[in-house]
């Protein structure tokens, strides 16, 4: 069981900055994120895109902003549970919470802060009506263990890096790999595209372009996919396969959080913004893009502000008998849990004789 003062769900910019604000108050944080790396949308969707509205940064790449935030919170030694989605929350008798992830990792904290942005990123499923019937019965959206596909027939769909990379990898594992893509051009890395072309020429990858998988067949288990060619003359073909792996990227979903009893409005969590961004469940806060209130602006800088306000409230919740006065880092400096200390040089006042 992982124990911490504040359990933050979501390791995007807002969640990361909350670690800093909590650290100033000597509160330790642990973050859970469904993605395998911190940074949320900034890392997953647009790491190379410049952001222009972070105060003090005329221009900063989203990925660099995340790197800077990670550097800024390093002294506060946050813990991370990455690549696991927060699934369930159980309130304990003392008012604390146990949050369990999709892989069964348990976390215990007196306060839970949801900084989940648009939600957890989940694979985009192609609109094939029968696809749900074959999930885990031949259809997989993520490749967890490539050995599952050894000596099997595999059909991969998609035109991005994931589809290319896995086609290349499985070409040496599976007995047959087919890559189905809607058009002839691929939007992946050039060397991956070239490698797929090479493997196609020597018959290691069956490249099927200008075509889409439109239906799945099989009694109980998947046994074939129906491929429709753009060229009407070629029509449709039924292709025997053991596995169908559609790789079309990720899209955000609020996910299991939606079932935690929180008040939801327009796909976001309602909070009390006049005070501290607490949800309708005491002890659970929501900050950043995941929350909503009158006048809400979904901006990174607003998430940072909400993180600071939330931490002050959490401090009082955890330490009801202590009086805390907000301090400026220019005055108090930053004392990390790792023993590091940053503070401004004290001026030397000369005495007048």
């Amino acid at each position, binding site marked *: 069981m992982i124990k911490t003062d504040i359990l933050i769900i979501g390791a995007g910019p807002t969640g990361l900055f909350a670690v800093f604000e909590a650290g100033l108050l000597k509160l330790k944080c642990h973050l859970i994120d469904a993605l395998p790396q911190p940074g949320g*949308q900034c890392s997953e*969707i647009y790491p190379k895109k410049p952001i222009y509205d972070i105060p003090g940064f005329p221009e900063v790449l989203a990925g660099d902003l995340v790197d800077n935030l990670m550097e800024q919170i390093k002294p506060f030694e946050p813990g991370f549970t990455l690549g696991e989605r927060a699934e369930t929350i159980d309130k304990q008798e003392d008012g604390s919470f146990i949050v369990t992830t999709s892989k069964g990792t348990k976390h215990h904290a007196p306060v839970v802060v949801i900084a989940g942005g*648009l*939600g957890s990123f989940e694979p985009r499923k192609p609109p094939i009506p029968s696809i749900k019937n074959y999930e885990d019965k031949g259809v997989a959206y993520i490749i967890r263990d490539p050995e599952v596909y050894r000596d099997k027939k595999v059909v991969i769909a998609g035109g991005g890096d994931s589809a290319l990379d896995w086609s290349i990898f499985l070409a040496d594992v599976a007995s047959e790999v087919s890559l189905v893509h809607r058009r002839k*051009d691929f*939007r992946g890395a050039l060397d991956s595209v070239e490698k797929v072309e090479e493997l196609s020429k020597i018959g290691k990858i069956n490249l099927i372009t200008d075509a889409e998988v439109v239906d799945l067949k099989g009694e109980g288990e998947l046994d074939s996919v129906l491929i429709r060619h753009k060229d009407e003359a070629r029509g449709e073909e039924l292709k025997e396969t053991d596995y169908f792996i559609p790789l079309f990227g990720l*899209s*955000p979903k609020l996910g299991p959080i939606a079932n935690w009893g929180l008040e939801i409005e*327009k*796909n976001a969590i309602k909070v009390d913004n006049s005070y501290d961004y607490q949800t309708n469940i005491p002890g659970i806060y929501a900050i950043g893009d995941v929350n909503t209130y009158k006048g809400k602006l979904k901006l990174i800088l607003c998430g940072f502000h909400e993180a600071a306000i939330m931490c002050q409230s959490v401090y009082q919740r955890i330490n009801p008998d202590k009086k805390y006065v907000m301090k400026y880092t220019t005055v108090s400096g930053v004392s990390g849990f790792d023993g590091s200390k940053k503070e401004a040089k004290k001026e030397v006042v000369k005495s007048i004789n």
Partner: protein
Amino acid sequence: MSDVKITIIDREGEAHTVDAPTDMNMNLMEVIRSYELAQEGTIGICGGMAMCASCQCYILNFEHMLPEKSFEEEDMLDQAFFVEDNSRLSCQIPITEGLDGLEVRIAPASE
């Protein structure tokens, strides 16, 4: 500059003719969001960078008055679902006077 009239058919099939301002640097996705014609969280997820296709729409007329598709838009549509010949990413369509009378239908939200 004045507003233009754009007809947007929402995901339930209802048509809405709305006034879209030409002087606010808006794009069609932002107009759809501002009139709340698609559920929040299901449109404009990437914020308008042609990186999610959640704002895909079908152009029902006036296609010749739209800007050419950029490489990024072509690429994203290539990865999207429910794509038709008249598909565009509404975030890549700036509101200009030339769009007066445009009719579009919002593509279904993908899972």
